[in-house]
């Protein structure tokens, strides 16, 4: 899974029917320091994540299809959680 930050939303009318009336969000990949690492991913939302929130993103097809309960969904990235706190103790 990936730590991400919701940084944008994509509005699209012409798309694969699975993506009709689903929230498609632009997510920055975060480093452990909580700062964007420069990479991004487009994921659909399943937990009503808001702008700027730190989220947990699954980036694997089978898990994503299990969540949306659709074996034929062309889906790989889905937001499955909103993160309250990330703690990385100094080892």
């Amino acid at each position, binding site marked *: 899974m990936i730590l991400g930050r919701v940084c*944008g939303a994509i509005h699209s009318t012409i798309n694969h029917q699975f993506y009709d009336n689903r929230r498609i969000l*632009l997510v920055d990949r975060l480093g452990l320091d909580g700062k964007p690492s420069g990479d*991004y991913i487009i994921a659909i939302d399943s937990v009503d994540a808001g702008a700027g929130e730190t989220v947990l993103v699954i980036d694997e097809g089978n898990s994503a299809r299990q969540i949306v309960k659709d074996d034929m969904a062309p*889906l790989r990235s889905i937001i499955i959680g909103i993160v309250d706190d990330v703690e990385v103790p100094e080892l």
Partner: protein
Amino acid sequence: MRLGRVIGTVTPCVVCDGLEGVPMLIVQPLDKRKNPVDSPIVAADSTRMAAPGELIYYESIREAALALDPWFVPVNDAIIGIVDDVHYFDLEET
């Protein structure tokens, strides 16, 4: 999924079965701010409506094949949808 811009079309005369009639478009991968990154790829168009110049989002590997019908086709990248607008939340760019 990632953002891309359609920059051309590819018209194959011979394709393996299952891919007949599937539009093949040249897509330039983009970063979050729509700047070109990496080298262009050829993607199958599941919407069958994308044209050169349009901003799209595409999926890769197995999910690309799932976007097409019939789905069990040898495709590496597929255009999932055409972007009308990318709305950036104005977070402080750290």
